[in-house]
């Protein structure tokens, strides 16, 4: 039951965050790239003002899997590193916390480009 509730929270919150993106796609003329940038920066800002951490505690992967969650990791990393190292931590924490994701994207993206041939657009 507890597990089911956890998945339900992740599903609903994650779905709603994606619907905000869908709203931006359908109602505005923002390009995909701008929407992605907007989501990451929003995640950083919402974390900084203390809104996103409660959401992430509540919804789990529903808040951390959308790109706002990437911003959440960046901001949390920066804040924690400042606590540990002082000012230079601001330049350390963001990337440290997101290192696995960034490296995975670059390496798996690279392997994919070497293995697969281009597809016709559907």
């Amino acid at each position, binding site marked *: 039951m507890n597990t089911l509730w956890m*998945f339900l929270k*992740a*599903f609903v919150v*994650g*779905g*709603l*965050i*994606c*619907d*905000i*993106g*869908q709203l931006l*796609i*359908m109602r505005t003329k923002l390009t*995909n790239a701008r*929407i*992605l*940038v907007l989501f*990451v*920066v929003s*995640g*950083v*800002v919402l974390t900084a003002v203390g809104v996103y951490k409660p959401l992430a505690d509540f919804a*789990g*992967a*529903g808040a*951390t*899997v*959308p*790109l706002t969650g*990437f*911003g959440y*990791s*960046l*901001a949390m*990393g*920066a*804040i924690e*590193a*400042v606590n540990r190292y002082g000012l230079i931590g*601001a*330049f350390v*924490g*963001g990337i440290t*916390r997101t*290192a*696995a*994701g960034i490296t*995975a*994207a*670059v390496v*798996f*993206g*690279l392997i994919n*480009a070497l293995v*697969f041939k*281009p*597809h016709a*657009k*559907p």
Partner: protein
Amino acid sequence: MSRQPLTPDEYHELVSKLTPPSRMLRGYWRAFWVGGLICCIGQALTLWAQQLNLGEVTAPMFTTSCLIFLGTTLTGIGVYDRIGKYAGAGSAIPVTGFANSVAAPAIEFQREGAVMGVGARLFTLAGPVLAYGIGASVIVGVVYWLVRGWVL
């Protein structure tokens, strides 16, 4: 009868006026359930990571890496673009969409070579996202440092 050509704004207004509400609703529903489902896959991976006894910091890293592997692989075999056509933001906003935005241009520009083709195009979309994301996180860190020093 000659018609004035529409400006982009007028065209946009016309399109949104003529789009039936049911189609708008369908778009939201598709983005909702696909996005929600991807987050549930992430939740399942998080549970798995906890069973593997990964810590509170490493478990999200494991989850993100697995999802990114999923995203790039589905992009490579040509499935993710189909999902994207169906789900819109539902597949673009989760981190798998970020993986897709890294892998897709790299695959597409293979013929431009391994360095300026694949190597550079990996960052077509990831570049702006990382630049502004990291920039914002540095600002947050510096402001936090200032506020902390000032309050304490």
